[in-house]
């Protein structure tokens, strides 16, 4: 195997093993918990009646056919989460191993060998392919083993097809990342372009599944194509055609563009100079604002668009909720009338976005240290507390603004449909999203202070765990002790119920305590590179 393929494969496979395990465990937990919790036909019928025609859950998680079976429930419960996780994994892995290597200057060393620019990209794509195969094999293996359980009973062939569907978005977004790595001049920019495509794709699918009479849009989104594979329910392998075609086109374009651009440059021209922005280079805290701005703007747009969409669908989705649906939404924490209940569940998705923004802020702080840029500030009269405090102040302001944006845009969407929800109530529901994000940020600062090199692993593992626990535990099949470990489980489903300010206070206090301990550890430890 050529050296670039080997190098890329080594890193992609390691990451594929971790995510394959997460995918497999999530599928197994979902299937087994359903089989154990919903044992009788009556219980399963009630569940199907609740979710089967629910437009809100359909918009968020996709349609819910065959909820009377383990297979049908597993697809509904876990597939959209895994599709999103797979897409994020795909775009981050390919931009890291393609554009990231170029940013670090290692790509030039490899190109100095016996290869061409196009040849190198082809080799790297083969390595990325090894990562995807690992992801599929591990996901498939755990799904097949889970299917052997008599209460689950999913045949090996169907299990492998389901695993294939679950990694399909990873494949597409690996290819998207490969293309944006050629278009953009930096890894960050490449990941941002790919993230925009992901956001738009998800939004189109969401509208298509929201019961607004626009289901045809499903074929306009890669998420829709994967949904149309219909694994475990009514398999439709024909949907693999657009997936394979788009992937092939993206990869071919990436290889072609790699040959016509200079190494270190992107197809989209990067401005080599700009007018100085004096206000945002006036000190460490101003710098933190400047550095956070591009990513934060991306998160705010994503939160605003999601909030708006949720607001738009809330009334029609809420109108379909019948008695048993209310019971199910109640298990997810929702209360109140249909629209409020739907918004309560939708705000969970917004809470995840806000928490991701928090994690991004802390990993960016760590990358200042690992890249050696922090040395320039800390060798001037800037204390470590001052630098970290400024960074955290910016983070808290970003999170509060994220919450308000979520509430205001959800209200704007709902108000346009005359859904009868008030701005103060939704603004309060938006602020309610902040405490879990503060807990995540505090845990990240703790890791940054004590185990700096594992900051991003701790952050994203905690996020993925919290998300999986709350999604799998939504039907009440998970132990209370496990549920309590999820920051999202502690959050009240506002606006369906009033925020639990005491619980929010405890979450914020945990975050602040983590940040304080992390700050003390950071003050005392050696600065550490990558």
């Amino acid at each position, binding site marked *: 195997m050529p050296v670039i393929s080997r190098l890329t494969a080594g890193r992609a496979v390691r990451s594929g093993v971790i995510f394959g395990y997460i995918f497999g465990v999530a599928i197994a937990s979902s299937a087994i918990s359903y089989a154990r919790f919903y044992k009788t036909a009556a219980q399963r019928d009630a569940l199907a009646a609740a979710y089967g025609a629910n437009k809100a859950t359909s918009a968020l998680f996709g349609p819910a056919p065959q909820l009377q079976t383990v297979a049908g429930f597993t697809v509904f419960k876990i597939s959209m989460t895994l599709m999103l996780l797979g897409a994020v994994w795909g775009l981050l892995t390919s931009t890291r191993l393609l554009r990231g290597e170029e940013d670090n200057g290692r790509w030039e060393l490899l190109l100095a060998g016996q290869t061409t620019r196009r040849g190198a990209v082809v080799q790297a794509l083969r390595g990325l392919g090894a990562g995807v195969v690992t992801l599929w094999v591990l996901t498939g293996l755990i799904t097949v083993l889970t299917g052997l359980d008599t209460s689950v009973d999913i045949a090996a062939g169907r299990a492998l097809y389901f695993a294939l569907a679950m990694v399909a978005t990873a494949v597409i977004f690996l290819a998207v990342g490969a293309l944006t790595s050629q278009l953009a001049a930096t890894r960050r920019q490449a990941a941002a372009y790919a993230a925009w495509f992901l956001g738009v794709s998800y939004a189109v699918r969401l509208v298509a599944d929201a019961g607004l009479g626009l289901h045809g849009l499903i074929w306009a989104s890669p998420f829709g194509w994967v949904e149309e594979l219909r694994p475990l329910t009514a398999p439709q392998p024909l949907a693999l055609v657009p997936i394979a075609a788009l992937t092939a086109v993206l990869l071919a374009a990436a290889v072609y563009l790699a040959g016509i651009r200079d190494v270190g440059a992107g197809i989209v021209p990067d401005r080599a*100079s700009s007018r100085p922005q004096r206000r945002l*280079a006036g*000190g460490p805290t101003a710098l933190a604002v*400047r550095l956070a701005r591009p990513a934060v703007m991306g998160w705010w747009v994503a939160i605003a668009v999601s909030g708006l969409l949720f607001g738009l669908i809330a009334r029609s989705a809420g109108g379909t909720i019948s008695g048993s649906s209310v019971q199910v939404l109640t298990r997810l924490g929702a209360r109140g009338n249909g629209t409020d209940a739907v918004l309560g569940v939708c705000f969970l998705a917004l809470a995840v976005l806000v928490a991701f923004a928090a994690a991004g802020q802390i990993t960016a702080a760590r990358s200042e240290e690992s890249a050696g840029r922090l040395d320039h500030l800390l060798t001037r*009269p*800037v204390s470590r507390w001052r630098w970290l405090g400024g960074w955290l102040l910016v983070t808290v302001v970003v999170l509060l603004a994220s919450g308000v944006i979520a509430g205001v845009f959800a209200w704007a969407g709902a108000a346009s449909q005359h859904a009868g929800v008030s701005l103060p109530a939704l603004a309060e529901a938006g602020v309610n999203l902040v405490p879990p994000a503060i807990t995540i940020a505090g845990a990240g600062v703790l890791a940054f202070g004590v185990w700096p090199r594992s900051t991003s692993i701790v952050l994203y593992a905690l996020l993925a765990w919290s998300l999986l626990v709350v999604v799998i535990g939504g039907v009440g099949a998970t132990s209370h002790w496990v549920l309590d470990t999820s920051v999202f489980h502690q959050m009240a489903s506002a606006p369906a119920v009033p925020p639990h300010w005491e619980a929010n206070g405890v979450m914020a206090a945990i975050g602040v305590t983590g940040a304080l301990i992390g700050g003390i550890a950071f003050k005392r430890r050696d*600065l550490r590179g990558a």
Partner: protein
Amino acid sequence: MAAMAIRTEGLTKRYGDVAALDHLDLEVAPGEVVGYLGPNGAGKTTTIRLLLGLISPTEGRGEIFGLDCQRQPVEAHRRLAFVPGEANLWPSLTGAETLRLLGRAWGSRGSWGSRGSRGSRGSRGQVDEAYRDELVARFDLDPAKKVRAYSKGNRQKVILIAALMTRADLLVLDEPTSGLDPLMEQAFRGCVREARDRGQTVFLSSHILSEVEALCDRVGILRQGKLVELGTLAEMRHLSALTVEATFAGVVPDLSGVPGVSSVQADGRVVRCQVRGPVAPLLKVLAAADVAELLSREPSLEELFLAQYGAGD
């Protein structure tokens, strides 16, 4: 008595069983220019990172102008400016923004957001913007460009200017000229000489021995974390061998048995050797021979350095 610009007592840093720096005792007086030499991994950068408070010592302590490097890093940093060997800057900022940021971080004395004076370095320790602009011109830097568009040498210029423009009492320079072309290296040497003339202290860690030889009053040589030599070049030369090269018109005498003479190399009628201690015995032998040409010179810093380590070490 004025505090030493740099003072260390038994400064030690261990990583597991490996001593990156082993009981360093060093004093640098205000106004001195001291060179700090050693091969890769000898502990030069570790010394500097300890002095800057970026890492903590396993044992011992360091002071900058009497301020403890670990307990009073902010106060110590008000008296110094640092140039690292690797210019990892913020890619999205322009050169001008970087200089402004680093100038504000150095000069604001804890009051972020205050507007600095535009004149020379004042009571608030603000950066002299006129001097900064002069340095930008001398180093031929285009400050409107983004850092990501700079070459390695241009990024190095940015951090050099950021340090020099402060006119700090102590300049701590770790391989400051890596990536600079010879013209810019000359500009750098000019700036260091001006700094010395202004009474600033310079602590220069470098691999470029000619640079250290040209600029430094004293030189310290580090080997495997230990300071093995510290003194002026004259002192070090005095303790080292003199190189003698003699060209003979007639018979070439055997110099190998002459007291104090070593490393005798004969190339036809030309003989090179090293003399340690009194040169009288050698001169007596040479006077008796038919010498056509005689050259002698003190060892260069490079020869002193190689003598410490051995050419193959």
